[in-house]
């Protein structure tokens, strides 16, 4: 254990040190070799403009290099691999795509992803908004928000363990240790193995992500609600609007932009959902999703980079509209 810890400390120093060395070293080199010098007649030859030309690229080089290697190049490489066989060596045209549109498992994964896409962002935003509004009206609202926000800090795997325990199933004649089945039996129902019930099990997995993401939606929406001017609300109340009308007709329209941002952020998380499905069912009992299937094909039978890449591209295609929307939004913000 001591040796391991020492290795760890060394590794951390090595990794972080290399990074700092680049920035300090490149600064030193720049100052040393492109320093102002004295000309033959004793006048100062300033190289400041040259240094200023180089310095942005020194600052940017590691970032641009990393972004290129880890994100830009792989996008094109994945596209290329999707037209190749499982080894990535032989060109096979559209064969992987042909397989994709016929594979029942993949079609099911697309269907399940679509269900996740509808249910999870909707309910997360709904509960997030509900908590944000309710918590502003009680004196213990801060505490309530913290508690609902807490799952955001928990890993998807940790959350899966927590909820697998909630869904735990024992035969009808023994005492249940899972909260859900205990509750069902308390009300006179029969215990069920929830995560193996086809179709409905998808919703039991979605609950886990809703449980995590509601806190996120709540925090962002709560901040947006604070920005709604108090005078507008007061004016509506004086005009005789009740609290529900104030909420639906004044608050919600005012924060619609933020709701949309939260919605798309959760949508992207949902598109990539992987850990929960892997830990809970590994795609069994009809719960397969794209990201889990892609991971599976990366290693199944020694790995099939062609099919894996094709599945990854399906996720990418779904993300593209959000990407375009983000860039447009950024552009219009920059102009204003």
């Amino acid at each position, binding site marked *: 254990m001591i040796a391991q810890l020492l290795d760890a400390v060394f590794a951390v120093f090595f990794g972080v040190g290399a990074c700092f060395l680049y920035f300090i070293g490149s600064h030193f080199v720049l100052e040393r070799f492109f320093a102002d010098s004295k000309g033959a007649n004793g006048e100062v030859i300033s190289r400041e403009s040259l240094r200023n030309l180089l310095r942005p690229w020194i600052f940017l080089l590691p970032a641009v290099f990393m972004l290129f290697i*880890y994100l830009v190049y792989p996008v094109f490489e994945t596209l290329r691999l999707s037209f190749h066989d499982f080894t990535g060596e032989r060109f096979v045209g559209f064969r992987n795509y042909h397989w994709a549109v016929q594979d029942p498992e993949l079609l099911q994964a697309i269907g399940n992803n679509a269900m996740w896409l509808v249910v999870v962002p909707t309910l997360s935003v709904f509960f997030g908004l509900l908590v944000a509004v309710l918590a502003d009206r009680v004196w213990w609202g801060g505490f309530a928000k913290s508690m609902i926000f807490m799952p955001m800090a928990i890993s998807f795997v940790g959350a899966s363990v927590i909820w697998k325990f909630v869904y735990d199933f024992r035969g009808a004649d023994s005492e249940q240790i899972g909260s859900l089945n205990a509750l069902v039996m308390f009300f006179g129902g029969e215990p069920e193995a929830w995560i193996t019930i086809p179709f409905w099990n998808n919703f039991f997995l979605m609950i886990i992500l809703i449980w995590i993401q509601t806190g996120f939606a709540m925090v962002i929406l709560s901040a947006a609600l604070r920005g709604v001017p108090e005078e507008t609300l007061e004016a509506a109340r004086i005009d005789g609007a009740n609290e529900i009308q104030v909420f639906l007709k004044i608050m919600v329209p005012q924060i619609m932009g933020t709701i949309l941002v939260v919605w798309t952020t959760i949508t992207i998380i949902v598109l990539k959902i992987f850990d929960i499905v892997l830990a809970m069912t590994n795609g069994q009992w009809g719960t397969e999703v794209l990201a889990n299937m892609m991971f599976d094909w990366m290693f199944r039978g020694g790995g099939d980079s062609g099919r894996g890449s094709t599945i990854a591209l399906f996720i990418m295609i779904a993300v593209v509209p959000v990407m375009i929307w983000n860039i447009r939004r950024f552009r219009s913000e920059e102009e204003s």
Partner: protein
Amino acid sequence: MMSHRIPLLNLSVGRLLVHLSLLMLVMVWVLPSMGLLISSFRDKDQLAITGWWTAFTTTSQNAFGRTGVAGEEVLQDGRYVLTGSFFEAGSKTIQSYNTNFRKLDAYRSGEPMTMKDGSLFTLHADGSYVWKSEKPFKHKRGKRIFYVAKVPPTFSLDNYLEVLSAEGIGQSFVNTFVVTIPATIIPITIAAFAAYAFAWMRFPGRQFLFVVVVGLLVVPLQMSLIPLLRMYNDIGAFFGVSGKSYPGIWLAHTGFGLPLAIYLLRNYMGTLPKEIIESARIDGANHFQIFTRLVVPLSVPALASFTILQFLWVWNDLLVALVFLGKSDDQIVLTSKMRELLGSRGDNWEILTSSAFISIVVPLIVFFALQRYFVRGLVAGSVKGG
């Protein structure tokens, strides 16, 4: 506008409804984690048969004890007496007992039971027994006595001690730190320099490059996995080592975390007052000095926000660890280990609950200590997702 009212004096039906519905929501959100936390401290045998909500109540348990054997008795007032105890006094309380496990309620504790040979057996509430006989005992195996006992709630750290040593969670805990710390510091350093360049330096292609960064914010990780795995394996093969290494995963997390880091930091640095930076330039400071002495100290809130986001993201990551790190003891991280335990020890809830809690305790501490920065980072960066 509600806050200045005194809550108790204003309990209309509507307000009561607000309190109740929020309370319901909070309960639904908290109870699952509470169940896990409480269970992780429970006795593993109780945990397997009773719900965690019974943890604080006394439970009933059916068990048996074995008496001593012939030769252990003492002669007392002309009678042979065998004494002993089934368990440590105080750990349980006997309710009733019998030699026949089908009729456990036959004798209450302290009530003597006449055995077939006429001897008298008495089991007391504290688990001690007295067996008196006129004749010497002959049995060579201890006699089984079945009993019903009340078990008070017991909590201990036994489950934690077990997973930390025997299940290798302690080692995974260290591994997770080895992954997380560089994978947080490296991207933030690289991103801070780049963000400064985007915010305060003039160079051709600045606008274009930053739009690329905004576009990369949402590119799914899945697009990078296969090409990078192939690349890592090729590099590993070239040097004759495994493609799975700590530097490999640090760089992967750096690459994946950079777009959000650059985006957040550039937006923050862009809002710093122009005058400060310009006056520093007039005083002859170069960009490197302005950056390290002026901009970095002023950007601490944004740096802190991103550090927390990245720390939590790396600590909680499973996918990148599964692809770029091995599963040997010296590389496996907590999330990966948890996933293995879910497969191999799926029914051992004492192991799952305690290791899950170990894996979430560090993020929870970070979360509660730095919630404000965390929220700020989320609000500023709510374009990325995951």
